[in-house]
């Protein structure tokens, strides 16, 4: 019973807090307009639509153009980097292939592989003479 009372009391407290919070909206005092508001507004309208409209460009379109130019620049940089990277990889690949071919060529010109380079004047040690003289 005591627990029920505690729970009910707690619920009432919470509802009270909720009510106070929601009441803030009703208690919100309306703002009085600052007399500088209109002056600032007209200055801004003159700035954006007065001189800008005479030159044919508003502040917004100038801002948009700058953003567009920056985006184009980033795109060019990215594409150039990508192209350079691809070119560099191709060069390394070609160099690798050439080196491999050169190495293979060298292998087949060494003495070990030169089967037909020996001449008649050069003695050939076959081991037969040694057997015959024993």
């Amino acid at each position, binding site marked *: 019973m005591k627990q029920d009372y505690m729970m009910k009391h707690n619920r009432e407290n*919470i*509802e009270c*807090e*909720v009510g*106070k*919070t*929601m009441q*803030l*909206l*009703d*208690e*919100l*005092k*309306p*703002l*009085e*307009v*600052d007399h500088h*508001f*209109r002056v*600032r*507004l*007209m200055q*801004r*309208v003159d700035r*954006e*639509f007065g001189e800008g409209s005479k030159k044919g460009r508003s502040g917004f379109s100038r801002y948009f153009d700058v953003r567009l130019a920056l985006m184009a620049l980033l795109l060019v940089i990215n594409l150039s980097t990508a192209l350079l990277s691809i070119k560099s990889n191709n060069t390394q690949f070609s160099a690798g292939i050439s080196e491999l071919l050169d190495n293979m060529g060298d292998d087949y010109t060494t003495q070990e592989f030169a089967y037909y380079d020996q001449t008649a004047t050069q003695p050939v040690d076959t081991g037969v003479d040694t057997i015959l003289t024993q």
Partner: protein
Amino acid sequence: MQNRAEATIAGIAQTRSFQKSGMTSKEEIFRSLVTEHQEMVINTCYRFVFNREDAEDLAQDVFVEVFRSLDQFREESKLSTWIYRIAVTKSLDHLRRIKRVKRFGTLKRIIGVEDPSAELPAPFSENPAEALAENERAKILQDALNRLPDSQKAAFLLSKQDGFSNQEIADILKTSVSAVESLIHRAKKNLHDRLYTYYQQH
């Protein structure tokens, strides 16, 4: 296009209120609109952002948009409805932007770069202790409001402002009166539930 813009301005100038005053140029009509609606626009924005400075900046953006688009006003609704619709849209956009900035701002607060008090709404009370308590409560309310869907948030906040009937709110939100009543009812329930959960946990 020039002719259509001139025709639109001429059409607006022929409405009863402008005809009486003899205004014909876009600038004259614009100045008149600002004078008539600035208080309502600033307070509409204030309901969304709870901050005087942000409310005035938003109101400036609203009127700049009004000036920019005045030539294209189609008279499908009243001028005032159109202006307040722009105010609601700009306010909701501002809140969405703040939400994105806050995600990044949490990191800045952790490393001590940003001043957390910059985000608190304007105090309701002049007593510092009361103001601090109210600031905290206002922040809790603002967080709960920002979690509502945009349609519920807009309908609920507009209903809390003097000067808007349910019919006017329906015109601003381009919906029906019954839809507005439903949105307000659901907004109140959702707000209550969120605040209840918050106070239960803290």
